[in-house]
Every structure is written in structure tokens, then in C-alpha cells.
């Protein structure tokens, strides 16, 4: 039996439905990322698992026990709040010790040891004596993380655990979080608005949209084949091409919005007509002249150096297409360029998720 089972959970706030019949399961030790735009219900879902909100319908089971109507303090679930929710009148150490004190049963020295360990994980050994207001935002966030993991809960819920860290520290913490997860094997559900983070950390990525689960897959699966326009757009911000698809005796072919013809691979099962396709930015090449790939010509609108790679915005086929990659040849803004991709890089998308 799965460790965490959410069945048909619905949550409304007045007339507004924040969650629509969410179904989600996770095995013991799973690392699940909840991804989705602001306001799509990620925090609400965590809060329902934690017991801070009662679903209007549906059930939550943890470790085989129906906890839908169980008070939060009886669930052995830890939630790290988006707002940290550190207790301002307690030091860092006292904050981290708090869950251990509440659980009880652990002698003081063992508590100290666990607190030390948790603070070590988040690289905050030295700051145990400080009060939250004496910490920077990033340090506060790490205290909250330490407090969430210290009591080794059945389910660990993290709401944007790393959002306030700068890029370097964030990378460190991601590594730490992953290692922690591997060590403790806690069933973890974490929320992020950062696609890269979700892809980097999770075993399973759950993409939410307007209170519904749009897509659930492994990081590579969801990246390679997002399935819907929304998912493709949200995960890694791909180019979305609208192509009118035709089938002739020679195989499939299509035209872009402005009529530019595009050769297509084999899409058996796709009805002729207008369809949307994903084309990843890094799979688009930009060059001054034809390269032998599938290629169309366009105008270079902007170039940005991103460090390591260059981002080019090209107007072609009646829309803007973004390419990210090495472009070594010097190209003039406003000049004519050719963009190309491999036939198989075009991935067809459904307009909406099947429900």
C-alpha cells in the first residue's frame, strides 16, 4: 500500500475551488515535487496533507491510516511553511528543538544531538543562539528546514524551501536536501515555482494548474514529453509552434501561421488540422545560412549572453522563436538568419489535460 494516498480531495474557499478532486499517491521514500504557477493550489494541497485545512471531499491516508479528520498534531507530518513560521521568541536552537519537545520521549541530551545534527545539515552550527530576527532571510529559511526534518516525520512537506537563497547557496542546499532524503528516506512532498529545481530534485514531478493536477511524471518524462501546451510552456519555457498538419502521399507535412512549409516526422494518430507542437529552445540552432536541418529563415531580434550560452530571439514563421545555445558566429541584430531543428524535436501537444 502506498505511503501517502490522496483521493479525490476537493477544497473550496467560499465560491472559489482551490483544489478539484486531487488524486495523488506516493510510496515510502518518494520525493515528489509540486510545480505550478502562483495560486494554483500547491500550498493548499500541502496544508490539506498536514491537516491545516479540511478537504470538503476526499480522503488522505498516511501509512495506511485515514487521517482526513485527524488533528495536525497527531499526524506526524512536518510542514515547512512558505513564510518559515519561526517562533520569534525562541532562539534557533529552541526553534529546532521544539518538535522534539512536543513529541516527547527523548532525553534532553539526545534532543541536543539531533538539533546539532539538523543545524549542521543546513550549515547553521554557529547560529544556534540567535533569534530569528537576527538572521537573514536565507538563514531563517534554513532554520525552518532544520526544524522540519529534525523529528523525522512520516511525511515531510516543504513549501518553497529554497526560494530565498541566492543561486550558490541554493545549489548547495539542493545537494544537501537530496542527500538528506537519501539518508533518511523520508517521504517528501515539496513545492517550488522553479522548474529546474523540481527537475533536479524530485523522483516525481506533479504539475498543477488551477487546482488540478495537469501532469505527473518523472523529471525526464515530463521534460521530454510534457503532453499539454500548459506543461510545455511552464516546464522550461519551450517554443510553442502552431502548425497546420496535412497528410499527403509523401508522409506528413505542415505550415506555420504565415504559411511557411514545415516537413514533419511521422505522427500516426494525429488528425489533420491545426495542432500545437513544442520545440525546446536548446534544440533550435541559429546560423547565418542553411545548415541542412529542417530550416526556416527569420530575423534576429535580440541576443543575450546568459553565461555559458546565448539566447537568441528570432522572428520566423510569423512568431518569435527562442533559441538557446552556443552561437559562435557573429550575428547582427535585425539581420537575416536561419533557424533549424531536427525533425524529431517537434513534440505534439494536447490543448488541455484529459480529465
Amino acid at each position: 500500500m502506498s505511503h501517502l494516498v490522496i483521493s479525490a480531495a476537493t477544497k473550496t474557499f467560499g465560491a472559489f475551488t482551490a483544489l478539484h478532486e486531487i488524486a495523488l499517491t506516493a510510496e515510502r521514500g518518494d520525493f515528489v515535487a509540486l510545480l505550478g504557477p502562483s495560486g494554483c493550489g500547491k500550498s493548499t494541497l500541502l496544508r490539506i496533507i498536514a491537516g491545516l485545512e479540511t478537504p470538503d471531499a476526499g480522503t488522505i491516508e498516511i501509512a495506511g491510516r485515514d487521517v482526513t479528520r485527524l488533528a495536525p498534531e497527531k499526524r506526524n507530518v512536518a510542514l515547512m511553511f512558505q513564510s518559515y513560521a519561526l517562533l520569534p521568541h525562541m532562539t534557533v536552537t529552541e526553534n529546532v528543538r521544539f518538535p522534539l519537545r512536543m513529541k516527547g520521549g527523548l532525553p534532553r541530551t539526545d534532543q541536543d544531538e539531533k538539533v546539532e545534527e539538523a543545524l549542521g545539515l543546513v550549515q547553521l552550527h554557529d547560529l544556534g543562539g540567535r533569534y530569528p530576527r537576527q538572521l537573514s532571510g536565507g538563514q531563517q529559511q534554513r532554520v525552518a528546514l532544520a526544524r522540519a526534518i529534525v523529528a523525522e516525520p512520516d511525511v515531510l512537506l516543504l513549501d518553497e524551501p529554497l526560494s530565498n537563497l541566492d543561486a550558490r547557496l541554493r545549489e548547495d542546499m539542493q545537494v544537501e536536501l537530496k542527500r538528506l532524503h537519501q539518508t533518511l528516506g523520508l517521504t517528501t512532498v515539496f513545492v517550488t515555482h522553479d522548474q529546474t529545481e523540481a527537475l533536479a530534485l524530485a523522483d516525481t514531478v506533479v504539475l498543477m494548474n488551477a487546482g488540478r493536477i495537469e501532469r505527473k511524471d518523472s523529471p525526464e518524462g515530463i521534460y521530454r514529453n510534457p503532453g499539454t501546451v500548459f506543461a510545455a510552456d511552464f516546464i522550461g519555457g519551450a517554443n510553442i509552434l502552431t502548425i497546420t498538419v496535412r497528410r499527403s502521399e509523401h508522409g506528413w507535412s505542415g505550415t506555420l501561421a504565415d504559411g511557411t512549409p514545415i516537413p514533419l516526422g511521422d505522427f500516426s494518430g494525429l488528425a489533420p488540422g491545426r495542432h500545437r507542437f513544442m520545440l525546446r529552445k536548446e534544440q533550435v540552432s541559429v546560423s547565418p545560412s542553411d545548415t541542412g536541418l529542417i530550416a526556416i529563415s527569420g530575423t534576429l531580434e535580440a541576443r543575450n549572453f546568459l553565461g555559458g550560452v546565448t539566447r537568441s530571439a528570432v522572428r520566423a514563421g510569423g512568431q518569435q522563436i527562442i533559441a538557446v545555445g552556443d552561437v559562435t558566429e557573429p550575428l547582427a541584430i535585425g539581420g537575416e538568419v536561419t533557424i533549424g531543428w531536427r525533425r524529431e524535436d517537434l513534440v505534439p501537444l494536447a490543448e488541455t489535460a484529459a480529465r
Partner: protein
Amino acid sequence: MARGGTAQWREPFFLLSPGVAFLVLAFFFPAFQMLVLSFLGKGGLADGLTLEHYRKLVADDFYLGVAWRTFALSIVITASSLVIGFPLAVIMSRAGPGVRRLLIVLIVLPLMTSVVIRTFGWLVILGPGGGLSWALKSLGLIDRQISLMHTEAGIVVAMVQVLLPFLVLTTLGSLNRIPPDLDRAVRTMGAGFFRALWHVTLPLSVPGLVSGSLLVFALSISSFITPSLVGGVRLPVMAGSIYQQVTGSFDWNFAAVLSVTLLAATLALIVPYMMASARMGGRQ
């Protein structure tokens, strides 16, 4: 807040000086007048300064008794307000908007009713054959008429009704500033309702409880209309005695001595309390 271009002291100076000047002239000067009076001989300045009025106070355990009663009553009133006020404030802070509004009106209305009139109400309720006696009798709790008029308990009851709003409103201010996530967070950490109350809500409402109880204490130690009407002449309190000295015995010097004593005692209690709570508040 440093500012370019303008001198830093100018703005706060212009903002503060009217108020400070006003206070000095309209408050500290008159208060000082009373202080001087407590050291003046009967003949006024001509007699020079004297400690005779203070000697009268120290030699006399009657006034020490009055001072003690005043103090004890104020502490009981303050403690009762805390005990009733804290849960009430918590309930208000967690009630829905409708109930909360109702409760605020409930709390504010009595505050704004003339003391004289409100105390008259108490005379009726606490007096012999009054509402309380009647209610207790109907409930079968007592068999003869009782009266809380002219008792210390009566003073406490009436004063708490008058002063409770100060405590509740200031505490509510503190409670409203506690992020609701804190309570939820400790619930997920295994704390039940009461432990969350104890570990989060109570410590974080300390600033409000402190300033509210200071207010209640200061107002109760210096009130005289309600204590003298409800407590009567046989239970004199300091402020009543001061009034009595001024308008009955015409001994203004001694009235000043009592005033200075009252003030000193109030400060002696309030200052350490404030300092202790500032230390606690500073931790937050």
C-alpha cells in the same frame, strides 16, 4: 533614517518640541507644584521646606493601611483583569468577523459610559436587594440577602468592569500581530491546542499583556470615584483620601504627601515591570 541634504535632527525636533513644551508646562509644572507643596510648611514658602508632613504619614499606620489596601486592591484588580482578559482577547482574535465586532462593541461601550452613571448601575446590582442578590437567591445559592456594596469584592467587581477593556484592547493588538502560521506550525509539530496557546500565543502576547496590565494597575491605583461609591467611606483608598484631604480636611500639604507617596509607589512597581518586559519584548 539618514537623509541626504537636510540636517537629521531638524525634523524630529520640530515634531517633538510642541508636545514636549506642552507637557512640561501643562503637566510637569503642575505636578511639580504638588511635589513642592508636600515639603512646604503650613505658612507657605516663608516657613521654608520641611519634612513634617512626611513624618505624619510615616508615624501613622492608618494611612499605611490605606496605602496597603489600595495596593492590594489594584493588584487583585489587575490580576483579575488578566485572568479574564487574556482568554477573552484570544477568543476575540479567533472569532469570525461578526462575533469579533460584536465583542469589540461589548468591550468598548462600557468604557465610554460615564463612571458616575455606571457606578450607579453597580449600586443597584450589588446593593442589598439588588440584582446580584436576587439572581443568587433565585438560583438557590444563598438564602438571605447579600450585598457586595461597601466590600472589597464589590470594588474589584466594579473596577474590573471599568478597566477590563484596556487590557483586552491592548492584548488584542498584540494577538493580531501574531502571524497565524505560527500557531499552525506548532500544531504540525505535535503541539495540541493548549500547548500551542502556552508556547506561542501567550509568550507572543506578552507586550500587550504588559502594557494593558500597567494601564489597569495605574488607573486602578489612582481611581477614586468608583472605589468610594462602591467601597464606601469605610474602605478608604489612597486617591479617595487625597480627595478627602483636599476638600474635607483642607490639608493640602498632606494631600500632596499622599500624592507623592502614591506616585512613588506606582513608579516603584511599574518601572521594574516595564524594564523586565522591555527585556522580554526585546527578544522578539
